[in-house]
């Protein structure tokens, strides 16, 4: 019985580890921290008597746990970086790409910062976590309709903020080509 439980758990672990790690990595932009977070989530699950307690989709539970753990982690980090703004600290993790992409990333961060928190979170989950509305809804404990509303709001906002900038870049690229 116990052996069976262990086997089942290992299967789960192997099935979800990679994508959960990727998810955590995308929040934290640090592979080691992501590993820690995911391990933490699995340890909690192990202690939870998960076979009986986690009735809802296990996958949804895991993603949600990774999201929550990561946010807590970031909050702690934020507290650590008292003199550096969170956004700046995030910038440091951005892999070096070409200048325009970096500029755009900065523009996007500024634009996102203007959004209400929920809209921003929904957008980030959709864009950077490649999550479906359904998964976002489960992770944030919202209805799919609400998620869709937030996403629409976020996209409209970004369109207004970034479209001019993007158009300029497109023309610029066409011009030099």
């Amino acid at each position, binding site marked *: 019985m116990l052996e069976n439980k262990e086997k089942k758990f290992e299967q789960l672990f192997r099935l979800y580890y*990679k994508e959960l790690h990727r998810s955590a990595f*995308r929040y934290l*932009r640090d*592979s080691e921290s992501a590993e820690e977070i995911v391990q933490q989530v699995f*340890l909690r699950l192990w202690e939870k008597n998960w076979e009986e307690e986690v009735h809802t989709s296990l996958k949804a539970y895991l993603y949600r746990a990774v999201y929550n753990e990561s946010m807590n982690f970031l909050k702690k980090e934020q507290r650590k970086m008292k003199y550096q703004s969170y956004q700046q600290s995030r910038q440091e993790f951005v892999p070096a790409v070409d200048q325009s992409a970096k500029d755009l*990333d900065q523009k996007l961060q500024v634009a996102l910062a203007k959004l209400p928190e929920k809209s921003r979170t929904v957008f980030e989950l959709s864009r950077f*976590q490649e999550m479906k509305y359904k998964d976002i809804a489960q992770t944030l404990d919202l209805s799919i309709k609400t998620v869709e509303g937030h996403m629409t709001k976020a996209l409209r906002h970004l369109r207004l903020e970034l479209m001019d900038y993007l158009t300029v870049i497109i023309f610029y690229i066409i011009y030099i080509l």
Partner: protein
Amino acid sequence: MNKELLEKYIIGETNEEENIRIKNWLEQDIRNRSEYLKIKDMWERLPKPLEAPEVDVDQAWENFKFARENRVAGVIEVAENKTVMMKWNWWAAAGVLVICSLGFYLFNNSYKQEKNLFSATAVLSDSLPDGSQVTLNKNSEIVYSRTWMSKRRNVKLEKGEVFFDVVKDKEHPFVIKSGKSQITVVGTSFNVRRHEGATEVIVATGLVKVSYSNKEVYLHPKEMITIQDGDTTKVSVEKMPDLFYKYYVDREFVFENTKLERVVELLIKAYDQKIVIDREADKKLLLTATFKQNSLNQILQVISDTFKCKVIIKDSIIHITR
């Protein structure tokens, strides 16, 4: 076609029916297509999801198992910590208890508990917490409580003889218990003596109230009352002819035509020395002299000079002789 639906389509959240609608719309006009591409381009130009580095799932599983074991051990460790904490708590509790007890003891000793004041072979002078002066004759003892901030200043005469010079404080009567009598004063000086089961009070200055078995007597200066513990009906108030009772307080003898017999009696008491007047006739000699802080030798010298007699010591007894 609204932009929101196109975005939804690009993100991949549209349903089948919406997909068909959009496809038809795109094929209708080249400008539709260009508008769509513009939105798609924006979406695609937005920073992309980060590609996570490869992870070794086998290693992760091993790490997980290791962490799980340590976590179980960690739980035990926490439990141990708890017992250590418990011990600490007990020590802390014990410490607090000791400190409290000590504090209580000290507090008690200095304020609450009774304090004993006693003399042995020498006269002892001391002051009480309220500033009153007490002089204890040899072999005397008083007990007083330190809670004198309360209504009464209570003193108990255990044995011997004590002269009180009480500081005036109308709100806090000074009360002395001696045997079955109680002496209450406000601010006076007086002598209290316990002797052979009786209490003897002599007033020096002021008014003194003496209570015994539901009776009260007010004494004035130079008045003396003697109350027997065994029989409180035999109470006598007398006039004190002299101040000799105070000799141990002032170390002062004022003799005015005092019979030598009486002088020797007082000296015996004061100096704890056996003195004998050998000739019967000499006992009636009258002495007038004042001795202040004099030694027995000096006093005897004056006596011998005055009466032209001899003072000899034989078998540690002083003889006044011819």
